[in-house]
């Protein structure tokens, strides 16, 4: 790694394009938005940068605070559910025969290769009133009714006159289902990485010393997978918090998240300064979460080295 000192020209030639790219397409636009967040709207497209804090103050309006809280709530539940669902999946993959593991991991990664929009619309087809969940339920309803008919109990209408499809779409539940579906891989992959790295003789030692599977899981597996769990929690939570498409397509009127509000500011409301301020608040929260992760990682790295 020291060789770049001897060939500074080569070093700069190689690193110039990516640096330029980063500056022009990432840092510069980001800075512009940052500057905008201290501006005032002027006319239809004009922005007058007056270094006012009014946009940030406005973000703490109860209306927006509530949406922030709701976003946290959605992201939190999503992260928790991903952990609860993802941990058994990660364990299952870790302990599968070696030749099946790549296939199973591929199944986890596969959705990444499909456009989010398509996946979300597919989920709509599954969850809507005339969707596959309701079709399945209806099929069971008819079969159950058939049994009742056979038993001569059809006239009591135990199961109701008609099948009542469940309203699975356009509400908060649909948003959480969608978010969990989209973010599950973010949880499973770091968990799998942590479990796969773990020396399995720790688990055998625990069993050998008299602990059951349950005890072993909480006293040995979870603490040893701590780094993976924290990574999983944070890299699930951050994108879930900034979700915009899922609540937009699957949610009802009361299930919008902060990203939806931001999108509206930039588009229909045409209030770029306020949108910029909200964006930066969301980013600060993200940085905060990453800082926590870095702090906790410092605590576990010493342990991992053992």
């Amino acid at each position, binding site marked *: 790694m020291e060789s770049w000192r001897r060939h500074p020209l080569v070093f700069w030639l190689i690193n110039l394009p990516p640096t330029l790219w980063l500056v022009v397409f990432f840092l510069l636009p980001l800075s512009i938005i940052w500057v905008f967040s201290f501006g005032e709207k002027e006319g239809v497209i004009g922005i007058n940068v007056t270094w006012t804090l009014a946009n940030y103050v406005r973000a703490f309006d109860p209306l927006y605070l509530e949406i922030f809280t709701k976003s946290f709530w959605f992201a939190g539940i999503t992260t928790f559910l991903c952990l609860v669902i993802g941990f058994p999946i990660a364990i299952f993959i870790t302990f599968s025969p070696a030749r099946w593991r790549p296939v199973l991991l591929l199944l986890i990664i596969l959705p990444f290769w499909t456009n989010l929009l398509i996946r979300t619309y597919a989920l709509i087809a599954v969850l809507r009133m005339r969707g596959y969940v309701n079709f399945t339920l209806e099929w069971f309803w008819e079969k159950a009714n058939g049994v009742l008919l056979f038993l001569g109990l059809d006239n009591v209408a135990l199961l109701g006159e008609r099948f009542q499809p469940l309203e699975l779409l356009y509400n908060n539940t649909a948003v959480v289902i969608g978010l969990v579906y989209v973010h599950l891989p973010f949880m499973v992959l770091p968990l799998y990485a942590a479990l796969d790295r773990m020396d399995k*003789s720790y688990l*055998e030692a*625990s069993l050998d010393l*008299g602990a059951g599977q349950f*005890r072993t899981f909480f006293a*040995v597996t979870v603490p040893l997978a701590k780094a993976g769990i924290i990574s999983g929690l944070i890299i699930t939570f951050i994108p879930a918090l900034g979700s915009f498409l899922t609540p937009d397509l699957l949610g009802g009127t009361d299930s919008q998240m902060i990203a939806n509000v931001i999108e509206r500011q930039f588009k229909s409301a045409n209030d770029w300064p306020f949108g910029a301020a909200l964006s930066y608040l969301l980013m600060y929260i993200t940085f905060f979460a990453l800082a926590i992760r870095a702090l906790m990682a410092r605590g576990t790295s010493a*342990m991992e080295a*053992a």
Partner: protein
Amino acid sequence: MPDNDVMISIKEVTKRFGNTVTAVDQVSIDIRPGEFFALLGPSGCGKTTLLRMIAGFELPSAGQILIDGQDMEGIAPNHRPINMVFQSYAVFPHMSVFDNVAYGLKVSGVPRAEIGPRVEESLDLVKLAGYGPRMPDQLSGGQRQRVALARALVKRPKVLLLDEPLSALDAKLREAMQLELVRLQHTVGITFIVVTHDQKEALSMANRIAVMEEGQVRQLASPAELYEAPNCRFVADFIGKTNLLQGRVGGLSGAQVLVQVEGIGPVPLSGDKEMRGEVGVAVRPEKMRLRGDGPAEDEVGIKGRVAEIAYFGEVSFVYLTDAQGRSLSVAVPNHKRTGGGAILTGQDHWCCWRPEDAILLPE
């Protein structure tokens, strides 16, 4: 019917992995209470699989394992009266030494007041008194192994299993630990079963050794018996160094078998009188003498040319090649500080031994 003289009874145990691999093939061993027992063999001989079946981490494909008269079938590892010291030690990195040792007591519901003293006692036993608050990453490899030992012994198991316990230690520490393990076993009086690929380790520690190859026990005997009276070529070759000569049974002479060895003539050997045809004659290097003028009256010998001398400090191994192209090694103790160079490469010497020091082996 529990047999008081048997702690672990392995009956016709077979372990197959898939359809093709038979790791352990119809092994039957009885291990006595208080015995220091070694499973010895090259890697892949099935010794670790057998140990893992005793621990309950692998299930036998066929056969039965009894511990203290109780059939272990269907009994999970955490309910067996045995504990194991893992090759990697598996000392929990997120727990202090004390918590590691206390873990097994806590999970099996030992009263809190009893845990502290028992942990201290166990740490004392492995000479780690006062190390309780340390974390595993503050310990050396040898100390971590002692923690693993203390953690297993604190449970007062009927049997302690040790999987290659010394393989991760450096040579000096390994030797000290061999003596330490024997001392520990005498103190606690528990049956120890140790898996090792290191024949010196097994010979110096165990009361009895089962030598395994290809999933089967080739010989089960005391260390001295394995060394002085191996029952097959594999054991003779695996345990210690040996000179293996080819011979042919020529007849009987009283209680002894006359074996025709090329370049020597008929050699009377004690052994199985039923043996016929081609046989092996094994002579340990230290049973041989180098003589310049032919074998003594009670000896037989082969003349060879010194090809190489390997100096080991206390002993030198002299490698000779005879007229038939056979390679022979003779151990020459370095009794004196000087004058060790009396034997030189290129010289002709007689490798001589007394027939009663040779071992008759079946083909």
